[in-house]
């Protein structure tokens, strides 16, 4: 199994101004280590404020770590080279649907993504857009649609199309499945599982929805106050969590 992503001793502290002369620091994440192989799914769970979002921001280069390394296929990732790898790691948020520009047709939006990050010519871009829509169970005509013309489920697919059109190796889902209705969630989960099987896509699932984690994640990392408490094979962590906090979190979801 090829290691896709490796994170070593990642640390990040925020300094907040509190009052005129004093600063308060918040340790957002500290000494985080994990690896993620091609075609695998790692879930990162923890409560609000546990550092999940910070970790995601560090991985996509929106924030810079204070120390530690992020290695992508063995190569260290540098913020200054963000554009070089932003098509390898893609990101999808909870309100993915709302982040689409309401005045832009879907085809145009996807074309912009390709123009920004690839050297494809217009003809090739058109073909790529068509293939991607098809892959996500959407139609050619949908290129001409504006976001408001889609149902919630289709919009989620459009957001996935935008993330996947660059053939990333890793997709980070930040609470992207949590708020979905059950039948829609089941559809999207099936789609993600199928894509993973076909193209070896890896997922980093950031969530506090533990029931889903058990079904789709190979590995699980429990984050609490910026530190990793338990990390390992999902079934193993569910059965033998080492920390009280992890056990409490797991029990709240399954009992």
């Amino acid at each position, binding site marked *: 199994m090829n290691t896709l992503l490796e994170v070593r001793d990642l640390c990040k502290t925020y300094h907040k101004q509190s009052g005129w002369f004093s600063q308060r620091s918040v340790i957002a994440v500290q000494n985080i280590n994990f690896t993620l192989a091609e075609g695998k799914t790692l879930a990162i769970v923890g409560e609000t404020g546990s550092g999940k979002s910070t970790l995601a921001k560090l991985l996509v280069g929106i924030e810079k770590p204070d120390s530690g390394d992020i290695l992508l296929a063995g190569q260290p990732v540098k913020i200054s080279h963000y554009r070089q790898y932003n098509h390898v790691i893609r990101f999808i948020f909870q309100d993915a649907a709302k982040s689409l520009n309401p005045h832009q047709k879907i085809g145009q939006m996807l074309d912009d993504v390709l123009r920004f990050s690839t050297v494809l010519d217009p003809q090739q871009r058109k073909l790529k857009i068509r293939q991607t829509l098809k892959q996500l169970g959407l139609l050619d005509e949908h290129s001409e649609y504006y976001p408001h013309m889609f149902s919630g489920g289709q919009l989620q697919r459009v957001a996935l199309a935008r993330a996947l059109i660059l053939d990333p190796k890793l997709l980070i889902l930040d609470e992207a499945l949590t708020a979905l*209705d*059950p039948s829609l969630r089941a559809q999207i989960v099936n789609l993600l599982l199928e894509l993973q099987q076909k193209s070896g896509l890896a997922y980093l699932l950031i969530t506090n*929805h533990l029931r889903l984690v058990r079904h789709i994640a190979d590995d699980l990392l429990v984050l609490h106050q910026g530190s990793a408490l338990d990390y390992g094979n999902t079934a193993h962590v569910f059965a033998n969590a080492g920390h009280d906090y992890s056990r409490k*979190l797991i029990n709240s979801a399954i009992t």
Partner: protein
Amino acid sequence: MLLLDIKNLTIELKTPDGLIRAVDRVNLSLREGETRGLVGESGSGKSLIAKAIVGVLNKRWQVSADRFNWCGQDLLRLPYDQQRKVIGRDIAMIYQEPSRSLDPTAAILEQLEEAIPAHLLEGPWWKRSYLRRRKAIGLLHKVGVRDHQAVLQSYPYQLSEGVCQKIMIAMAIAKAPKLLIADEPTTALESTTQAQLFRLLASFNQLKGTSVLLISHELESIARYTQSLSVLYCGQLVEAGETASIIKQPYHPYTNALIKSVPEFQPNLQPKTPLYALPGSIPVLQHLPIGCRLGPRCPNARKECVKTPTLERLQNHYYSCHFPLIGKKDL
């Protein structure tokens, strides 16, 4: 005794093109001390029903019912003022987004004290403000907020979503309601806080005999806290009965899909295998299918389904489907 007994509740939106029927002839009842779950996807009409019960729908909506009884009294026949008085006294509602439902400009103490009705304070008038304060503190303790001093002086934005939610509950139980309606009370909360909240609601139910109507789009999160269940699809009641027997043997294809799509209810499902999913998505109100509204997505649909199925009953289990998932011999 039946606390709430609603028959054929219909809620329609007035539009320039005529009425759009968002909730279609739904039956709903609650016994004293009962905890009932109301589940359905977003847009299925759950919040409309809740709002119709507490009478807070605005003028764009038209509400009608063959029967709308509260403690044996038909509310829709009462004069408006009377209706408001009965509901205000007996029914309390907890909304989806706590931090937005609290007044951002007032301290918690003020908001909580305001929610305590005067008739629940027993004592001479000169002691009223002291009693009110005591009661406010007592309410916070009841919902599991121990640090009452700090919380009472805070403004909503200074508190976490979980604490705001508890304050909403404290305000809701301040008037000792007979029925507590919780509309997706946990969507904004973490899973540990969610569990706490449900346990809290269950404890009011057990200690005080308060009836609870628990609304959610996730069957799995409310199933273990409810005795009975009503399942909505697209504004229609598709199935109702005891929670345990519905989970064990759903009669309606939609309920069946809800249960099967959740890994938690499928202990034998191998990790990373496909989940059961109905094709397509919930239709918009402007383009409802003719007959059974699940028709276009239903794996069992046949030509009879272009006729709207009626609500059938088998013992305490109600369903509306021409081809329920039970052998005909049981009928």
